[in-house]
């Protein structure tokens, strides 16, 4: 960790002003916003992130922690903690996939500290990114190459990757958000705006170091999940080596409205396997209007993983991800019929 200046913004305007150089999450960004700190402080200790200034948002925006669950959908303040949302009765009842994606993530200690806004922006767990003694990492040192492609890559991504980066987006909550077509609310130098959550994380292009589409100085203030007949019959299935405190080898967020066995509508997100939070419209299309049989679930899973690109140590991932999705779909089918009529 290197010396840095610490500033606590008094209000939203000052936060935006102080954070004007926050750029788009690059490693050399001179200013970083601090919320729960559960990713940022780690990466500063590892010397991966070297901000000259931290802008603490808790005083300025800490009030954005509401959890509103009503007929207009689910609104989550960006400063709500993972633990608070995971335990919220309305979320548990109407959006179980959201609650489960948070409850199955991290550890109890981290869930108590980490905020939703920070959670969706957590960095990859790629060892070659997180250890500065590796000289090749396009995400950390633009243009330096990718050590992971020829290195140990058991838990690297197979979807959305390219020859310049195979890092995996490690979060769970964002997978549920992208599946449920959430919007993200932002506050920035030019006022407030809202955009589809699916646009927040940048697809892999020529610049892996640019991780998201936030403008300089922009702060996430909340998430809005639209209501839908599918949100109650939903779940998050996370497959991993140990039972808790571990990132996914493969995960699936599924939400569906059934008419008997017939799929009226379905939303599918995949985690643990992709460069960014991944929604599989292909899998959704394979199921919509068809009966939810094992064969159809397998066909949907095959469609979801059709573009997978594997490396030496993650050859297993497409198969594990397919099985994870099939299991999630069949488990969701067995959930009790929900009050929404799904």
């Amino acid at each position: 960790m290197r010396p840095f200046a610490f500033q606590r913004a008094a209000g939203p305007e000052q936060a935006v002003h102080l954070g004007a150089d926050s750029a788009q999450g690059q490693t050399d960004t001179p200013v970083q916003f601090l919320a729960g700190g559960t990713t940022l402080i780690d990466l500063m200790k590892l010397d991966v992130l070297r901000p000259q200034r931290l802008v603490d948002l808790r005083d300025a925006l800490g009030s954005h922690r509401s959890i509103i669950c009503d007929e207009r959908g689910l609104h989550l303040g960006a400063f709500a903690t993972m633990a608070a949302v995971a335990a919220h009765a309305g979320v548990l009842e109407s959006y179980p996939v959201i609650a489960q994606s948070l409850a199955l993530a991290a550890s109890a200690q981290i869930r108590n500290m980490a905020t939703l806004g920070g959670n969706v922006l957590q960095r990859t767990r790629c060892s070659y990114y997180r250890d500065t003694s590796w000289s090749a990492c396009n995400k950390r040192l633009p243009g330096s190459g990718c050590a992971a492609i020829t290195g140990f890559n058991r838990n690297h991504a197979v979807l959305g990757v390219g020859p310049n980066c195979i890092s995996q987006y490690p979060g769970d909550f964002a997978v549920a958000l992208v599946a449920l077509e959430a919007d993200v609310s932002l506050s920035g130098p030019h006022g407030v705006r809202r955009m589809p959550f699916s646009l927040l994380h940048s697809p892999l292009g020529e610049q892996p170091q640019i991780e998201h589409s936030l403008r300089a100085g922009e702060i996430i203030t909340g998430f809005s999940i639209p209501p839908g007949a599918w949100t109650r019959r939903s779940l998050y299935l996370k497959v991993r080596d140990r039972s808790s405190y571990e990132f996914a080898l493969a995960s699936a967020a599924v939400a569906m409205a059934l008419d008997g066995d017939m799929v009226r509508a379905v939303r599918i997100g995949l985690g643990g396997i992709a460069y960014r939070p991944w929604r599989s419209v292909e899998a959704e299309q394979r199921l919509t209007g068809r009966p939810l049989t094992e064969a159809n679930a397998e066909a949907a899973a095959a469609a979801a993983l059709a573009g997978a690109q594997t490396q030496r140590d993650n050859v297993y991932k497409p198969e594990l991800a397919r099985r994870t999705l099939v299991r999630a779909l069949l488990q969701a089918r067995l959930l009790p019929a929900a009050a929404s009529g799904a």
Partner: protein
Amino acid sequence: MGAPGTDPVGRPTVRVDGVAKVTGAARFSSDEPLANPAFAYLVTSSIARGRIAGFRLNHASAVPGVLDILTYENVGRLAKPAPGPDGKPSTSTLEDARIWHDGQIIAIVVADTYEAARAAANLVEVDYTREVPSAGFGSAGAMTEPREAGPAGNPQRGDAAAVLATAPVRIDASYSTPPQHHNAMELFTTSCAWDGPQLTVYEPSQSMWGSKASTAGRLGLDPDQVRVVSRFVGGAFGSKGPNPRTAWVAIAAKRIGRPVKLVPTRDQGFTVATYRAETRHHVQLGATPDGRLVALTHEGWEVTSRPSGYNVAGVESTARMYACPNIATAVNITHADRNTPGFMRAPPDTPYMFALECAIDELAYALQMDPVEVRRVNDTQTDPVAGIPFSSRSLTQCFDQAAARFGWGSRSAEPRSMQDGDWLVGYGCATACYPSNVGPAAVRLSLSADGKAQVALAAHEIGTGAYTTVAIAAAQGLGLQVTEVTVTLGDSNLPPVAIAGGSNNATSTALVVAKACERVRSQLAQAAVTSPDSPFHGRDPASLRLENHALVGSNDARESLQDAVGRTGQRLEVYAENVPAGLPHGAMAELMQGKFAMLGGTARKDVTAYAFGAHFVELRIHRRTCEIRVARVVSAFAAGTIVNPLAAHSQYMGGVIWGLSSALLEATDLDTSAARYVNKNLADYLIPVNADVPSIEIIMVPERDTRVNPLGIKGIGEIGIVGMNAAVANAVFHATGKRVRDLPIRAEKLL
């Protein structure tokens, strides 16, 4: 001995240091207060092989508060190279420009604050002359050779190759285990403070006299100038012996004229200390149709560093596990550009028994026999290699008791035949074993007239409960309550004790404490029988014993300690040394020189000494996604006298949990082209969380062993983990029909 049921030995006793530990009062090495300390931070290499071409230190030196930066250029000649865990040549650190392995210590920054030292360490720039490294097995440039087996050679008997060729039933299989790191809670800290020519080292140590001698030797000091203090150790598991960093921290403290404190990071711990290297095994078994072994071969391969020949050679145990007339073993080492491995619970047996116990399970399925029965028909009371008896061996009793408790009889033998919904259910079992080792030890013990005892020796509290074990042994010998004994240990200024490893400590310390107590009893008895005012005047001193705060005669006459001790003074103090039978007389002198002096359970002429056990495990594997979740474990152990059943239960249980971990989770991942570890943290190096630990039942099978040593103690530090990995792998086979021979067993191997 006191009245039945009142003996301290064998009674469950809460740890005398328990409150201190849970309240934070226990002082671990980096808690030791130092006057005006400076702080050190390690700089480690980012390549695995090559040379340092040069340092650029200008940015680092400019950080405010930086006091010194040690490199080979300015301190390399000030210390002799540190030996490896086997006492032989190992990799270097600051001695020269050579890079032997990833993460090697190449510079130490010393500053007024930890933060300044860390910031400056990040700014040290190193230019390397790189060479292509070899990561391990199968890497170009790695060099494999047979181990140096010592005078006894590798265990052999009969003609295994010839008998195998004609054996009615044969198993021929290869197995492997990955690199693993101890990851004790407490990091590899070192603080050094000079007082004139005297050096005090505060360091977690399981070999204080070893560290004292090693540090003195490297710095050219008289060993009496070095004191190593290690009152509590936050987990050792084999990793906390003499090590390369100590001398450099001492030199840093000397150079700046202040105490220096080093707390390396978790990730540095993966490369600045030892670990369990990866192993490979080829096992062949030949058997008769009724399951009797007629031939057994076990060849092992282990990775080590370039200069070190360190190996664990667990064929010493696997060759002795079952009755078999034809045995052949061999061990090879592969030199690669890696840090030198070392002891890790249980050094030889964890990897080697994995191979053997999986092979025995494979044999059972080939024979269509119950795996428990295969072990029963091959059980023996005679060491098949040496041809001498086991001091005691209750393996079948362990299997029987654990199997009954587990409900092994309800197992459906066919693989993949038991299910619970979408989960495949598997049952597996395996043998546990560990040799009963013992070392020399010395102690200073005193008994006061007010009925209080003080015991002092340089024993090691590495989490196993040494303070309490020593207190129990003294209370037993002096007829006191455990709470009336004050134990001081963890300081090399106290009489020496062998390294806290190889399950020897309870035995070695209890034997020497018993000897000291006998000396106290003898002196009090002698004084009493020659004293006209004693009720024992004129009696045979050998007929008197210490019991319930009194000197007691055969006719139940009593003399209080107040009187019996008061006759000799207010306090009777004795010093005792114990060299166990079978060790040469010079063993005590060697111990005092910090050398490894221990009598191994397989090195004796009279008996072969081992503790045994049996593990039973039930696990569940999801039929689609193949996650493995352990449902329950029942393990039984027979290990002679159990000094403290409460601590023993915890120690066994900890070993079982570590065994589950070793089977399913733990692996240090290698980037094979760079020969570097990549998961050097506790998020990515997986160990079990609470949710992974199921119901674990421990059965302590009573066992009285009059041959292993006078107290019948076998030692239980290591045995709990041994064989657990095989029991899990065998249960995975039972659940799925898939034999996974390479650890760890993870979902992708079952898809």
